[in-house]
C-alpha cells in the first residue's frame, strides 16, 4: 500500500512538475483575444496586423504619435524633395521608392524591387482574392530602375501615395514560378500565408499552433537592430474571463488589442497592483454613432429634429457612466488626433451641449408637440416620436448606452423601442444597406489615419437601387456642397489645403448632423511593469511597430 502511495506521489510530482525549458531566454507571453486567419492582403484582421508587423514590416511604419518613419524604404517620398512628382493637369503621379540594401528575407534572400513587382502583379491578378485592390489599382505600372530603386506610376491623383502602396511584396524565389505558370490557386493555397509565413522583420515564426499560439523567435539580423526579447509567444484567448485570469495571474506578461473590453479592463485595473501590472487606456479610431433613417421617417430629414436629438443626449453622462470619464464624447466622425483634423476645426465646428429645453424648442419649431400620452407628435403629419432603436445584441457597452439614451430622450417626449439583433442580422446587407431598419441603428465604423471621407459621406455612396445598394453612406446624407468638397479633397496633394477642406466639411457636417456622434471607442492594453517599450498606437496601425525595442527587465 505504502509503495503504491509513493508511486502515486511520484507520478503526480512528475505530472505537475514538468515546466518550460530554456529559462535563460527572455520570453514574453503576449495575449490577444483574436487569432489571425492567416497573413497577407487576402485577410483583414487586427490580430493579423499585430503579428504581421513583427514578421513582415512595410516600407514605412507609423509610431505611437502617428508619425511615419522609413523601415525597408530609405526615405518617405516627398513632393518637396522631388521623390513624388505630381502632374495636376494630367492627373497622374510618379512616386520614387528606394529600398535599403541590407534587408533580407528570413530565409536569407535579399529583398529587392523584383519582390515588389511580383507582389503588385499577384495582387492585381483577377483571381487573387485581395480584400481591397482600390489603391493598388491606382498604380498603372512599376518601373524598376535597379534592385533597390523603383518608380510607381499612378493613373490618378491619390493623396496618400507616399504612405500607402495597397499591396505587399512577395518573395520572388518562392512565388515567381507560380505567377509565371498562372498557378494562382496554388499560390493562394500555399503554406506561406500561414505556418510558412516569413518576411524581413524583427521576428521569425517558429511555430503556429492553430487555436493556441504563435511562437516567434528573434531575427538577430534585423536591419533596424536585433530585438531585445528572444522569444515572443502570442497566445490567443477568446474568453474574456479566462484572459482576465491570465493577465491577473501572470500567465501572460502583456496583452494588446484586440484584448479585454473596457468594462473588464477597468475592473482589472482596480484589482491589480499598479506596481506590477500597468493598464493603458487610449482612444481608438472606431467611431460609435447612431444613424437615422431619413428616407422612411420624414422628420429625420429636418435638421432641427436631428439637432434636437443631439441636445436631448447627455453624452458626457454616457461617458461618465459607461467609460468612467476616461475619454470625452465625439463631436464629429473624425477623431481629433486624425491628421486631417486641425485646431481650427475644433473651434469652428458646431457642438451640441446637453440641453433638454433647447431640444424641446427645436422639436416645437419642427412642428412637434406633446400629445395626451406625453409623446412628441407632429401636428400636421401625425408622425409620433416612437423610435425603433437597434444595435448588436450582447454588446454590453452598446446596450448600456442605448438604455441611457432611452431614459434621456423620454424626458423630452421621445419614446425609444429597443429592438436589438445579432451582429449578423443587423449588418446583413439587405437589412443594413437597404435600410430595413425603420428609425435608428447604433454601430461603429473603423477608420485609419489615411481615411478620406468619400466612402462615408459622398452623395454617390448612398446605398440605393441604382447603385445596387452599394456604398457606405448609410446615414443617407445628401449634400451637394459636401460632396464637392470631398471630390476636391480626393485630388488635393497639399496636406494643409486638404486640412482646410476637411474643416469646411466638418463645419457642414456638424451643422447638419446627419448621424449622431457618440464617442470613439476606448481600447486598453496591459503589461507587467518589468516589460518596457510597448506603445499602443490607437490608430489601427499595429502596436508592435517597435517590437524590437521591447524588453523585459
Amino acid at each position, binding site marked *: 500500500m505504502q509503495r503504491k502511495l509513493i508511486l502515486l506521489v511520484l507520478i503526480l510530482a*512528475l*505530472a*505537475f512538475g*514538468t*515546466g*518550460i*525549458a*530554456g529559462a535563460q531566454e527572455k520570453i514574453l*507571453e503576449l495575449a490577444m483575444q483574436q487569432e489571425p*486567419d*492567416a497573413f497577407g492582403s*487576402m*485577410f*483583414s484582421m487586427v490580430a493579423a496586423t499585430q503579428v504581421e508587423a513583427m514578421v513582415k514590416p512595410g516600407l514605412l511604419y507609423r509610431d505611437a504619435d502617428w508619425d511615419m518613419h522609413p523601415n525597408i524604404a530609405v526615405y518617405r517620398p516627398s513632393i518637396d524633395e522631388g521623390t513624388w512628382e505630381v502632374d495636376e493637369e494630367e492627373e497622374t503621379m510618379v512616386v520614387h521608392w528606394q529600398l535599403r540594401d541590407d534587408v533580407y528575407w528570413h530565409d536569407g534572400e535579399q529583398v529587392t524591387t523584383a519582390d515588389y513587382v511580383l507582389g503588385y502583379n499577384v495582387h492585381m491578378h*483577377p*483571381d487573387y*482574392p485581395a*480584400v*481591397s*485592390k*482600390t489603391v493598388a*489599382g491606382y498604380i498603372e505600372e512599376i518601373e524598376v530602375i535597379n534592385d533597390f530603386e523603383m518608380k510607381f506610376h499612378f493613373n490618378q491623383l491619390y493623396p496618400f501615395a507616399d504612405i500607402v502602396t495597397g499591396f505587399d511584396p512577395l518573395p520572388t524565389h518562392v512565388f515567381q514560378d507560380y505567377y509565371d505558370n498562372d498557378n494562382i490557386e496554388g499560390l*493562394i*493555397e500555399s503554406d506561406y500565408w*500561414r505556418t510558412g509565413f516569413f518576411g524581413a522583420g524583427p521576428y521569425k515564426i517558429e511555430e503556429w*499552433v*492553430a*487555436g*493556441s*499560439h504563435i*511562437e516567434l523567435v528573434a531575427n538577430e539580423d534585423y536591419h533596424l537592430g536585433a530585438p531585445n526579447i528572444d522569444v515572443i*509567444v502570442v*497566445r*490567443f484567448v*477568446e*474568453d474574456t*474571463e*479566462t484572459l482576465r*485570469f*491570465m493577465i*491577473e*495571474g501572470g*500567465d501572460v506578461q502583456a496583452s494588446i488589442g484586440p484584448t479585454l473590453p473596457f468594462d473588464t479592463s477597468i475592473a482589472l485595473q482596480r484589482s491589480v497592483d499598479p506596481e506590477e501590472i500597468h493598464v493603458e487606456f487610449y482612444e481608438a479610431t472606431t467611431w460609435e454613432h447612431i444613424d437615422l433613417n431619413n428616407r422612411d421617417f420624414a422628420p429625420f430629414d429636418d435638421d432641427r429634429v436631428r439637432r434636437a436629438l443631439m441636445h436631448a443626449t447627455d453624452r458626457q453622462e454616457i461617458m461618465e457612466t459607461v467609460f468612467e470619464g476616461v475619454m470625452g464624447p465625439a463631436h464629429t466622425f473624425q477623431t481629433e488626433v486624425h491628421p486631417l483634423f486641425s485646431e481650427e476645426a475644433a473651434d469652428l465646428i458646431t457642438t451640441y451641449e446637453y440641453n433638454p429645453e433647447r431640444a424641446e424648442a427645436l422639436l416645437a419649431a419642427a412642428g412637434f408637440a406633446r400629445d395626451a400620452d406625453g409623446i412628441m407628435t407632429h401636428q400636421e403629419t401625425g408622425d409620433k416620436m416612437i423610435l425603433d432603436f437597434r444595435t448588436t445584441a450582447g454588446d454590453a457597452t452598446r446596450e448600456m448606452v442605448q438604455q441611457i439614451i432611452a431614459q434621456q430622450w423620454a424626458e423630452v417626449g421621445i419614446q425609444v423601442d429597443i429592438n436589438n439583433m*445579432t*451582429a*449578423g*442580422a443587423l*449588418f*446583413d*446587407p439587405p*437589412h*443594413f444597406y437597404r435600410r430595413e431598419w425603420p428609425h435608428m441603428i447604433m454601430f461603429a465604423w*473603423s*477608420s*485609419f489615419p489615411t*481615411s478620406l471621407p468619400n*466612402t*462615408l459621406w459622398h452623395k454617390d455612396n448612398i446605398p440605393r437601387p441604382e447603385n445596387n445598394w452599394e*456604398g*457606405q453612406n448609410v446615414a443617407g446624407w445628401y449634400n451637394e456642397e459636401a460632396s464637392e468638397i470631398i471630390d476636391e479633397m480626393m485630388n488635393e496633394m497639399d496636406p494643409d489645403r486638404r486640412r482646410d477642406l476637411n474643416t469646411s466639411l466638418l463645419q457642414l457636417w456638424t451643422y447638419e448632423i446627419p448621424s449622431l456622434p457618440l464617442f470613439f471607442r476606448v481600447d486598453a492594453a496591459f503589461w507587467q511593469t518589468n516589460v518596457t517599450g510597448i506603445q499602443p498606437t490607437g490608430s489601427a496601425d499595429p502596436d508592435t511597430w517597435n517590437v524590437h525595442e521591447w524588453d523585459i527587465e
Partner: protein
Amino acid sequence: MWVYIIRRIMQVIPVLILISIASFALLNAMPGDPIADLLMADPEMSEEDVANLRRIYGLDQPFHTRYLRWMGAILTQGDLGMSQQYKVPVTTLIARNIENTVYLIGSSFILSILVAIPIGIFSALRQYSLGDYFWTGFAFFGFSVPNHWLGLLLLFVFAFQLGWVPIGGFRSIRVEPGFWNEFFDRLRYLILPMITLGISSMAGWMRYMRSTMLEVIREDYIRTARAKGVAERIIIYKHALRNAVLPVITLVMLAIPVMFGGAVITEAVFVYPGMGRLFWHALINHDQLVAMSIIMIIAVMVVIFNLLADILYAWVDPRIRYD
C-alpha cells in the same frame, strides 16, 4: 451481421443527404456573409472589390448551384471545399483540429464512465444511504451547472488561486523532450476541460446506472441467485450488472456526438484548440463550407454511434439477434 450493418448504412444515406440539404439551406439563410463582415472592418473597400470577392468565392451563384458543386466535389473527389476564412482546404483545417478534440472527448468519456458506472452501482446497492444522497446531490449539480460557468469556476480555484494547473492552452510552449514529459504536460492542461466536459454526462449516466441497477436487483432471478447462495460479488457483477448496463450502452454511445457540442464552450473557456472552436468560428465568420463539413461529421457520428450501440447491445445481450 455484415448484411445487417450494410443494410443499416444503406438506410442512412438518404437521411444524410436530407441533413446536408437542410443544413446547407439553414446556413445559407443565416443573415450576413463573409464579404459584408470584411466591409464593416474596412469601409474603404470599393464596389469592385466586393463584386470581385463574391465572384471568386462563388457567393454570386444561386443556392442550388453552390450545394450541387459542394456535394459533387465530395462525391467525386472527396473534397470538402475551401475555407473562405482561412483559404485552406477544409480537410486540412479539420485534420489540424480533430486530434485535440479526440483527446478531450475521449478522456472525458473515459472519465465519465469510470466514475459514473461504479458510483451508479454503489448508489443502487446503498440506496438512501448518506453516500447515495451525496452522489444524488452531485448528479443534480452536474446536470444543472452550465459548462461555461463550471469551467470558469474550476479555472478560478485550481488554476488562478491554487496554481495547480495552467490557466489555459493545451500544452506548454517548451517541454523537455520525452514521451512521459509530453504526456504529463498535456495532462496538466487537459484535466480541467476534461472534468468540465465530462461532468454532465457523468451525472446522467450515474443516475441512469443507479435506476437500472435498482430495477434489476429486484428481479426474481437475482432473488433466486441469492436464495441459491451465490456469492454477492458474482450476483452483482455477473448477473445484475450485465443486465443493468444494457440501456446505459445506448445512452453512452449517443452521448459522444452530444459531447462534441459541449466541446464548443469548453474549448473556448480553456483556450483549447479543437473542432468545437473551429465550428464556432466558422459559424460567426460565415465560413459555410467549414461549418457544413463539421455538421456532416457530427451527423455521421450520430449514425455510426447509433449503429455501434445496436451492435454492442446485441453483443452484450445474447437474446438480441441481427435480423
